[in-house]
């Protein structure tokens, strides 16, 4: 039952996000369009490039979808409404989403095409840039909650949300989450107009449909993670807990889309330089500040 509810919420959010994304770009609100687009992919040819690494090519879209859903499986929607409340929950999100890199390298390597391969290796550079800014802010969150259980982390924010308690961590995590979801301005591995779609370039038909669905679910998962770690999860007045979780998750996801619409794509070299010379010192500073706050303020 819980599994069904969480999956419906996840897919529903992904659908809403697709509708809003199309609304923001075309100015037209067409609720059925994402479903039709998905269905139409079923009727199209799904080509296999010549001399591919078949195993990698086939695994990549499925793996991306699997890890995006697994990441969401440990994030609570409401008290008790979580698929698996693991004792290592916050770490599990990390672990699952580390496989986004594996999936993209596979998608880049598999088709034996130049643009795809460059996209895949670029994402490895991107991971080296953003990875620390995902894990270090989560550490500071775990310090406050004294636990890696995602439900306990939400519980620890009942009085004061983490976005107020550790705003620096929130900003770093939000930016890193956008880079992890490879949304604009961090869409280096796909880079439409520069890499001809990059890792997406050789996927057609039903495989492309799965890949696109996986990308949408990944954004929702990361928005849900931001909600759980920083925005107090299900806490909020009047509305039921699950409604608050969904509203916050969608708000974060849409703000990620909006941020991408007004920023130019960042270069790989710049992204790495900024992340390592500014991001990591700030993330360490965040851990230090939170450590002091925990000791000083009872």
């Amino acid at each position, binding site marked *: 039952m819980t599994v069904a509810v969480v999956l419906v919420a996840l897919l529903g959010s992904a659908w809403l996000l697709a509708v809003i994304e199309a609304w923001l770009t075309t100015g037209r609100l067409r609720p059925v369009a994402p479903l039709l687009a998905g269905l139409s992919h079923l009727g199209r040819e799904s080509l296999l490039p010549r001399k591919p690494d078949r195993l990698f090519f086939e695994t990549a879209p499925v793996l991306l979808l699997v890890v995006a859903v697994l990441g969401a499986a440990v994030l609570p929607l409401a008290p008790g409404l979580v698929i698996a409340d693991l004792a290592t929950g*916050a770490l599990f999100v990390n672990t699952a989403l580390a496989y986004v890199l594996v999936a993209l390298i596979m998608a880049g390597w598999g088709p034996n*095409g130049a643009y*795809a391969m460059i996209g895949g290796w670029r994402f490895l550079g991107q991971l080296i840039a953003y990875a620390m800014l995902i894990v270090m802010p989560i550490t500071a969150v775990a*310090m406050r909650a004294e636990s890696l259980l995602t439900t306990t982390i939400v519980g620890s924010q009942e009085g004061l949300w983490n976005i107020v308690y550790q705003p620096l961590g929130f900003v770093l995590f939000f930016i890193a989450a956008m880079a992890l979801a490879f949304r604009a301005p961090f869409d280096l591995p796909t880079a439409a107009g520069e890499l001809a779609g990059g890792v997406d370039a050789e996927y057609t038909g*039903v495989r492309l449909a799965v890949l696109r669905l996986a990308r949408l679910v990944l954004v929702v998962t990361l928005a849900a993670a931001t909600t759980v770690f920083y925005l107090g999860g299900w806490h909020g007045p009047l509305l039921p807990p699950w409604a608050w979780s969904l509203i916050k998750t969608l708000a974060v996801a849409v703000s990620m889309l909006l941020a991408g619409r007004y920023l130019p794509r960042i270069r790989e070299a710049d992204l*790495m330089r900024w992340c*390592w010379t500014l991001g990591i*010192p700030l993330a360490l500073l965040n851990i230090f500040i939170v450590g002091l706050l925990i000791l000083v303020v009872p």
Partner: protein
Amino acid sequence: MMSVLEQYSLLLGLVIGIVGVVLSLYGLARAMGPTCREPGKDVPASAGVLSRDPVWGRYHARYYGYALLFLAFDMEMAYMYPWAVVYKEIGLVALLDMGVFLAILFLGLLYGWSQGALRRQ
């Protein structure tokens, strides 16, 4: 509250379920019609010309300086999680312990920076 074993089996079931759904989608798409084999259709995108193949092995990972530093930091994170969980309990000692450890690591980052490791090669 489920046991740990139950939780992990649930996650495994979820993985199998997703793979099953995707495979049945593939089956559905295949049932709707075969892929028409035509010359040139399976050539990877490469701006209008046939790509030189194989393309594997042609990429220069110019971020290797970062990658080496990343290894050190990634190892360090393995210690950070258990430390973070018991931090409040242990208090100031934990802050000092990890502070010294991170300070040494951060000095390494500064040294690497001064030597030009934080640059696309």
